[in-house]
């Protein structure tokens, strides 16, 4: 089953740009061969690390959003683990979160429509008017 994953990894800072590109290209090839597809690739550039990782204090962050199977993600993780220039990585499943956010947005949109609709505004007083009258009648 294809799911959205976000893989962020840190490449050691003393790597050359070409090598970084080569590494990313290799990873991309891996994903496409494994039956996944790349949604976006973002090089976040050099950043200071919050703590020392393998004696490095800063690193090149790369963010990869992919559509892949769980098994393929496992394979990519294995590859990241063995590849020497990658010092840290994290893979996060995003599809459930996206679904949840979409749902919330949909609910919000419907609510906005109700309050913003001009037809709803006149309808409300008409409905409200008989209600007190009936209350008064019953009282």
């Amino acid at each position, binding site marked *: 089953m294809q799911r959205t994953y976000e893989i962020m990894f840190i490449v050691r800072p003393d790597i050359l740009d070409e090598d970084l590109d080569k590494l990313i290209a290799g990873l991309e090839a891996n994903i496409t061969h494994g039956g996944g597809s790349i949604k976006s690739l973002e090089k976040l550039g050099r950043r200071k*690390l919050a703590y020392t990782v393998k004696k490095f204090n800063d690193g090149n962050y790369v963010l990869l959003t992919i559509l892949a199977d769980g098994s393929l993600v496992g394979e990519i993780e294995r590859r990241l683990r063995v590849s020497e220039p990658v010092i840290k990585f994290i893979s*996060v499943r995003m599809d459930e979160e996206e679904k949840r956010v979409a749902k919330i947005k949909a609910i919000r949109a419907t609510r906005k429509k109700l309050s913003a609709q001009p037809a709803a505004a006149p309808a409300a007083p008409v409905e409200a008017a008989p209600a007190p009258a009936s209350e008064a009648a019953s009282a």
Partner: protein
Amino acid sequence: MADEISTPSAPSTSRPEGSGSGSSGPGGRPPAGRPSGPGGGGRKFFRRKKVCKFCVEKIDAIHYRDVRLLQQFVAERGKIVPRRLTGVCTTHQRGLARAIKQARNIALLPFAARY
């Protein structure tokens, strides 16, 4: 026993007055000495209702990447600030804690800040 009960109430009554006028630091004793009189003094102290930032600003997804946002909910030493201090609602605190932990894992936030 009666003294023990009255002493905790004394600081609570003196605190709002202390915040109201700066000169009542040493003068905080007299109001504490007559706790029975201005019992409403403690009531006057108004605590602003804390609101959940994520609910108010309608931030749906708490993502581990936006360090700026997460940093507001992390103490100086890198601890996650409890809900009772920040006013974040339960649902969002859960997501927030998860995001902070993910961010720590990828070295965007510290596990423990250096001194």
